[in-house]
Structures are given as C-alpha cells and as structure tokens.
C-alpha cells in the first residue's frame, strides 16, 4: 500500500518531457517533488503563472507571488505571469498537457465529484470545473476508499458532479487504473503488497482485470 508520497511518486512517472502541467491542491502538489530532473516540465498555476518554482526560503516570501492554493511560491527563470482570463484561456484551449487533481468520487464512466458535500459548508469549485471540462489528460490522485471505508470508485457518483466523462487515469494507495472510454476501471498495476482481491473489494464500480496485473515500480 502506498502513502501520499508514494501516490505522488507514481503519478510523477506519468509526467513527460515537454509537458505543461497543472497540479491541484493536496497530493497533486506533492507530485512536483518527484518529477525527474532530466525532463523539462513547466508547472501552471491557474491564478496566473507558468513556471512555478519551489516554496521560497524563509525571509524571501513575496506576498505578490502565490500559487492557486494561496501559498507563497517562487518563479523559475523563464516563467510568465498573466491574468485569470488568459490562464483559463490556455486551459480551455488545451495548451496544458496534463491536469492532476484530487477527488471525492470517480465513476466508471469518468465522472468526477470533488467540490461539494450536501449538508456541509460548500467552499466552491474554484477552477476545478474549468480544468476537468477542458483538459484532455486528467489523472486523479486519491484514496481508494473514504474515511467510512466506502469505495470512491463507483458505478455512478453520488455527490454533486464537478465534470462528466473526463477522468482518464486514477492512482490510489492500492492501484493504478485507467478509466476506459466505454466505461469501467481497468486495473493496470497493484501497489506493493496489495492483491487483486484487495482492489476488487475496495472498488464498487466495474473493475476490469485482464491477465497478470504487475506490481507497480516506484
């Protein structure tokens, strides 16, 4: 089973040379720490920055330079700043190659719910609906089951949706799965020490297992 860092490490392997990548809040943010040094990747922050760098050293924080999680960050050489409309313009126009975000639920046809729980204080969708509606390559980083032990990989989402038919790949503490175009979670890899049966038990939606499922290498 993977911890959060492990999920981030595995997702980092999906980041390819030349990609522009948008990372959501939570586990996705950790992915930046594991992108191989020998590839060229530019991080987009939807509040208006390409070329996001690491957190600043103490004493070097700039209140005018933050990421979409409102954390102080730095700008790398070659970065570019722009307004919010242009930021979502490049997202809508599919210039961003990969979007990695968290979720509360994903359905077997790629629907995602990650912004609202009825009866609880709703904070808003931020940029998530724009990202999932436009991005062609969306990876979800999340736990396989919720705190109550219920599967988050479902036949249909039960929570209000953020977007439909959009998630392509899911990485959890148990597995790597593709969401197939015709529906279903195809099991690609098992986390170290996790069996196919463990994954079947934790997956409420249609799970497709073909042949030997390799253990992931991270």
């Amino acid at each position, binding site marked *: 089973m993977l911890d959060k860092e492990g999920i981030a490490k595995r997702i980092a392997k999906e980041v390819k040379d030349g990609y522009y990548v948008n990372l959501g809040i939570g586990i996705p943010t950790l992915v930046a720490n594991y992108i191989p040094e020998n590839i060229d990747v530019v991080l987009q*922050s*939807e*509040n*208006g*920055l390409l070329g996001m760098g*690491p*957190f*600043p*050293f*103490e004493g*070097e*924080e*700039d*209140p*005018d*330079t*933050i*990421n*979409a*999680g*409102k*954390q*102080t*960050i730095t*700008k790398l050489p070659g970065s570019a*700043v*722009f*307004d*919010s*409309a242009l*930021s*979502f*313009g490049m*997202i*809508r126009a599919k210039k961003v190659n990969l979007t990695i975000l968290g979720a509360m639920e994903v359905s077997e046809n790629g*629907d995602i719910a990650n912004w609202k729980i009825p009866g609880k*204080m*709703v*904070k*808003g*969708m*931020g*940029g*998530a*609906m*724009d990202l999932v*509606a*436009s991005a062609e390559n969306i990876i979800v980083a999340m736990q396989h089951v919720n705190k109550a032990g219920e599967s988050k990989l479902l036949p249909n989402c039960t929570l*209000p*949706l*953020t*977007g*439909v*038919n959009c998630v392509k790949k899911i990485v959890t503490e148990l597995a790597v799965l593709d969401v197939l175009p015709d529906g279903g979670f195809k099991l690609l890899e098992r986390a170290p020490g996790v069996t196919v049966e463990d994954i079947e038990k934790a997956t409420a939606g249609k799970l497709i297992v073909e042949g030997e499922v390799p253990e992931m290498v991270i």
Partner: protein
Amino acid sequence: MNKVVSGAKEAISDIKNGMTLMLGGFGLCGLPEKTILALAASGITDLTCISNNAGVDDFGIGLLLRNRQVKKMISSYVGENAEFERQLLSGELEVELIPQGTLATRCMAAGYGIPAIFTPAGIGTEVAEGKEIRNFNGKDYLMEMAFDADFAIVKAWKGDSMGNLVYRSTARNFNPVMAMAGKVTIAEVEELVEPGELDPDHIHTPGIYVHRIFKGEGYEKRIEQRTVRKR
C-alpha cells in the same frame, strides 16, 4: 485626462446602497485593500460583490461581511472565513458559486463588449441548471453572460495619472479583467507616476478603462498561506 483622486474616500463617494461591485485579487493577493477599508467605513449596504474569494475574517471582503454590508457574493471559492459561513448558513447572505474560469471570462467579455461566452465548464453539473447549452463541433458548451457591474475596484503596482496600469507578479490575477469590466473603474496603486514614466509597451491595462486612480499608503499585503522551505 487626469484621473487622479485624493484617495479611497473620494473614489467611492458615489457608490450607493444596492450596487454591484467587482473586486480584484486572488485571496488576499492583489487585493484593493485601501478601497475596501474605505467601503467598510462608509456604511454602504446591500452590495453585490463579484470577487474570486471572500477575504478572511478580519481582512479584505471579510471586513464588509463583518459589517453586514454584503447582500450577495459571486465567487468561485469562499473558504477561510468563519463569519461568511455563519451568514451563509443563517440565510443572511446570498452566495452564487461559479467556476473560476467562467468568472474571469465573464469579466473579460464585459471589457471586450461581448454579451456572452460559451464554456464547457459546468456541463453536466448543477452549474448548468437553467442555462442555454449549445453544441459546437460535437461538444456541449454553456452560455454565460458578461458581467454588468456598477463599479470595478482593482489594485495595481504602478499607474500613471492617465489611468494606465502595470501589475506585479501574481497580484495581477483578476485585476486586469475586472478593470476592463466596470461601468466605473477605480484603481489603487502602490506608485503613482506622471504620463511618460511607464513604458507604453509594458502597460497591462490601458487608461481608457480606468476612471479614477489614487496612490494607497502603507500596503499591508497580508500573506494567507506563508509557506517556506529550509535552506
């Protein structure tokens, strides 16, 4: 074309109860903090505020919420504010949550003179309820209307007396698109200079969009999530 006013108090002197205001900033970054302080001291009420966020309890739009000056918020994300949550749950405050890109682009459309835009954001979700959907090239899009705001209030780094504006780093965020979108636009700046001192090639908001400008004194520039790494 001298648009300089004495300060925030003069800049907001004709804002009336019940008006719709746009306020720039992303969280507390690039926030028109001086004009918000003047609004908080003004007693103007029943405001509809279009802003990406709702500030924190004791800073930014949170100050207007604390004074019960806001009737409705139109935002994409409103966490980090306990008073906001209280007013929302008690029904004192109306809130319309919209996707961040939709918010920005509805501002942009207003500034470009375009009545509506089509975006895929929100298709298949509750955001789409009651809205016109059009299919282009096999994909569904929602029609979203350009904003209509009485005042836009923005913060820039530098500006000249003609209203030309330059922003700094990610404090740019919603400010340029909101500056374009108000019937009246108020800009507060850290540095106010004479025409000719800003390079025309480097201006982000042309002065034609700006009606009033003033220099704010002593910017607090609070940091919402101070995050650092070890040396």
